[in-house]
């Protein structure tokens, strides 16, 4: 008898070759389970986004198996992908519309998500009136409304300044503890990766393979000052080394 729970997402020997012959991913296998926050780093073009697209079913892999429940996956894109003609509130409502949540239940769910990401008071703003960081918050709020058990992030905080990014990281962790989703995160920032994750995977240049895996030992909740501890720097250094060897 096994005590292991099914992972929320399982890649088994995934390879991807595009019709034009581009080999994006070669034989990638790893799991993401409930309570885990896995971050993937790797050189540009190594197939990280492709991996998420395969997990979510936007793309089909050429070989290998993905095990995942696609009925409710959260997917945060690199750009906030807010519909410009909808207010923050109405952008969040879009998801509820698409999933046929009755009108009478919506207001409460929407307010909860807005409060959760700290956008209270900005409900009726259009995206063009929000800063980049606030747009990402709105995008997060929208994704969280449906309480996805698996949440995937594709470089969500790449376009905001360093300090905003740190705040957003801290809030992401708060949401991670609160909402208890399994997280799969993509970034180019090593410190972001270490700060957020339970595990950091390093991918090689294209075709992407997983070439290293680092467990991050810190318990949650994590203090912002963790970023300046010696062991944090140490781990970041090792990941940096692995990442350098990936750039060939």
């Amino acid at each position, binding site marked *: 008898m096994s005590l292991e729970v099914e992972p929320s997402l399982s890649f088994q020997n995934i390879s991807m070759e595009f019709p034009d012959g581009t080999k994006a991913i070669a034989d990638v296998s790893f799991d993401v389970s409930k309570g885990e926050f896995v971050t993937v780093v790797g050189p540009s073009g190594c197939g990280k986004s492709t991996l998420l*697209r395969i997990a*979510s*079913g*936007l793309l089909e892999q050429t070989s290998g198996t993905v095990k995942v429940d696609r009925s409710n*996956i959260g*997917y945060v*894109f*690199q*750009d906030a*992908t807010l*519909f*410009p*003609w*909808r207010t923050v509130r109405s952008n969040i409502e*879009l*998801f509820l*519309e*698409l*999933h046929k949540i009755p009108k009478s239940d919506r207001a409460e769910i929407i307010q909860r998500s807005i409060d959760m990401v700290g956008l209270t008071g900005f409900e009726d703003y*259009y*995206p*063009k009136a929000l800063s980049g960081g606030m747009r990402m918050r709105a995008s997060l709020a929208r994704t969280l409304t449906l309480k996805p058990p698996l949440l995937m992030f594709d470089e969500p905080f790449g376009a905001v300044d360093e300090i905003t990014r740190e705040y957003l990281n801290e809030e992401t962790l708060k949401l991670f503890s609160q909402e208890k989703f399994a997280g799969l995160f993509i970034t180019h920032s090593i410190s972001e990766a270490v700060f957020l994750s339970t595990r950091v995977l390093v991918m090689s240049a294209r075709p992407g393979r997983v070439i290293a895996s680092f467990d991050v030992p810190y318990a949650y909740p994590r203090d912002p000052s963790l970023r300046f501890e010696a062991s944090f720097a140490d781990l970041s250094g090792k990941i940096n080394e692995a990442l350098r060897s990936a750039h060939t």
Partner: protein
Amino acid sequence: MGGRWKTVIPPMISVFVLLGVWYGFSARLKPSRQFLLPPPHSLFTKAFSNSRAREEILSSLILTTELALVGLLIAVFLGVSLGLLMYRFGWLERASYPVLVALQAVPILAISPLMTVAFGYGFGSKCIVCVVISFFPIPTNLLLGLKSVEPSMHDLMTLHGAPWRTRIRKLALPNALPYLFTAFRISAGLSVIGAIVGEQFFQQGKPGLGQRLIQYRVLLEYERLYATLLVSSLLGISVYLFFTVLGKRLTYKWHASAS
């Protein structure tokens, strides 16, 4: 200060320049030829001040406005339908573009005998000219707007299992709205031209502005001719402004073009 003046002054300057050029040309004509381009104020002293002329022009204006609006309405209905269908069915886009371009390029005058056989000399034929002339911008701009949705937004809809109807209604159409209103603006102006051209080809029925233009030219009533031209362009400007304001109203809150 500043903002308001910046929006008011430039168009006023161009109107004054236009009037100046008009006066200049008119003054340089030999007295015997001056009737060809009477000075601007004479439109008022000799045409609009005459109650008979005023009534003629006004009743024609109403007829032409009706014709242009009916034509525009048909063009909008057909254009929007075609745009949506072309978006939905790629083959239809490829099939209809050559026809659209040909329709746009064909001198409508050349097929007018054919049209009289099919639709007579009355409202039907005039209306068709109006539709043909004002149609083109609508399906083409709409299609451009529908297609210029960001791919990641489509991914979002795909992730949530949105069927294509929902995708069009909630994503592609709102995205195309600013493009569509640009098309409506252009088409509205064209529909006025189309109505007047139609009236000039097919002269049956009560006279609209198109017939008046011909009539006044034949009668050498050049003040009335120019008065009619002025009214025609005011009509064009009005419908253009109407759609500009409506479009802004509907999109200014969110669209980047509105400041």
